[in-house]
């Protein structure tokens, strides 16, 4: 039973991290807000918005680890797995790249708060080993990719797979919507920091969202499909 749970939790991360696959090092930071891009005020704001979730995650990890010390090892492997997928040079469908909201689906089993920790560690590694994103913008990036994405994925999966009993559709939607929500949140973050001269925040949001939609919408769909594909494989063996 324990083995099964471990396996299925890992499996979910695997699925979620699929779109990491579409994230090539060359263009991979399309959705990682770069170092220094946000003004000081907004950097601090997003750090402050992210940290409570992070601490919630730490608390629940501590609770699990007390019971099962090896859980730490499992989380570490899961994080490394996610990071490696994101770092592989693999051409994607659209020729563009994705971003790591995929942590979202891991939340289905670990719970979204654990993913807030794991996802932000993956982001930190991307910053330190690949120079994707940055330190001052880590709060903003983590908020969109390690908090909102997982929460959306968790909610969607619970609703569709739990209430409606449609597991595969649930997984597809969870992966795709987690991806989309991350991209929308990033657009909001940018719009808030840089309101348009004409039309203000709303206009700015429309512009940022419009630009990134070119790559992010097809990605969200293909990621949903790939996640289901890998899910099927994992189920079969």
């Amino acid at each position, binding site marked *: 039973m324990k083995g099964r749970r471990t*396996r299925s939790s890992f499996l979910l991360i695997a699925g979620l991290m699929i779109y990491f696959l579409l994230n090539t090092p060359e263009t991979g930071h399309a959705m990682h807000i770069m170092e220094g891009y946000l003004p000081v005020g907004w950097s601090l704001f997003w750090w402050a918005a992210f940290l409570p979730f992070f601490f919630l995650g730490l608390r629940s990890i501590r609770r699990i680890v007390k019971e099962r010390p090896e859980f730490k090892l499992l989380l570490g492997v899961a994080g490394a797995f996610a990071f490696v997928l994101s770092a*592989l040079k693999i*051409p994607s469908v659209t020729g563009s790249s994705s971003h790591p909201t995929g942590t979202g689906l891991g939340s289905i089993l670990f719970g979204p708060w654990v993913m807030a920790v794991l996802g932000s560690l993956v982001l930190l590694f991307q910053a330190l*080993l690949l120079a994707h994103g940055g330190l001052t913008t880590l709060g903003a990036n983590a908020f969109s990719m390690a908090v909102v994405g997982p929460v959306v994925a968790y909610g969607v999966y619970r609703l569709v797979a739990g209430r409606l009993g449609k597991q595969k559709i649930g997984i597809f939607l969870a992966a795709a919507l987690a991806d989309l929500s991350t991209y929308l949140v990033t657009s909001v973050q940018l719009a808030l920091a840089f309101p348009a001269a004409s039309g203000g925040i709303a206009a700015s949001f429309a512009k940022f969202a419009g630009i990134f939609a070119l790559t992010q919408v097809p990605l969200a769909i293909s990621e949903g499909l790939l996640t289901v594909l890998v899910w099927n494989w994992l189920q079969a063996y």
Partner: protein
Amino acid sequence: MIGRIDTLAYGSRLRNLPPVHKLLFAIGALVLALVSHPLVQALLFVWMSLWITVYARVPWRIYVLVVSASLAFLLAGAPALLIEIAGGQEWSPTDSVWASWQLGGWVFYVTEAGLTRVGILAARSLTALSCFSFLLFTVPFAEILQVLRKIGVPSILTDLMMIMYRFVFVLLETAEQMWTAQKARGGHGGLSETLKDAGRLVFQLFTRSMIRYRQMYISMTARGFLDDFRVIGYSTHVRSKRYESEAVAGLLLLLMLEWWTGG
């Protein structure tokens, strides 16, 4: 790229300076980059690049590569920042317009204020990036971890980071070898084949990760694992008067310049 930054950090000429000093310096410079004005930022950028390419002897090609890769984000966002949109009838710009285009009932235009804003943003981002790069290229991950342990970051986090770091390179090697093996067997033919191969690789990598996890758990138990991954670092750091004085004096000088010109 992966592993390159890490390897360069271990081989950097500033490797032996105490990591705490380097971290403080990088963070101080980063804060200054975020709050200062373009003139100071430009000087700071040049100075940090000097630290990276001359003092630390990081190959300039790689430094340029890192900087230009991050610029992709700047470029992608630039249109949204530059181009303003208004309905044709009510268009009465308050700022001076640099260029404009009429399309259907809409006007697309770029203002000089918008250009300035992007210029300021670019200066800040680039400077901040150079400070961040200093940290990347001169402080190896292991030492960042040591500092985190020293300043009391919860062990659950440092443990997780340590395990992740270790597995990243183990799994990366596995993934690379599998990718090569696929190529050697005539894989990666077209787009759909490549995607399928990628899916296979993810699945296989997942299986290997599970096996690794189980093996590691067994061998850690053999090494006396109870509930903790405590380790003790071994470091031979040498302070350098020359670098310390340049860092402190430089930062103070730039701070004074900022106060004098910007204030």
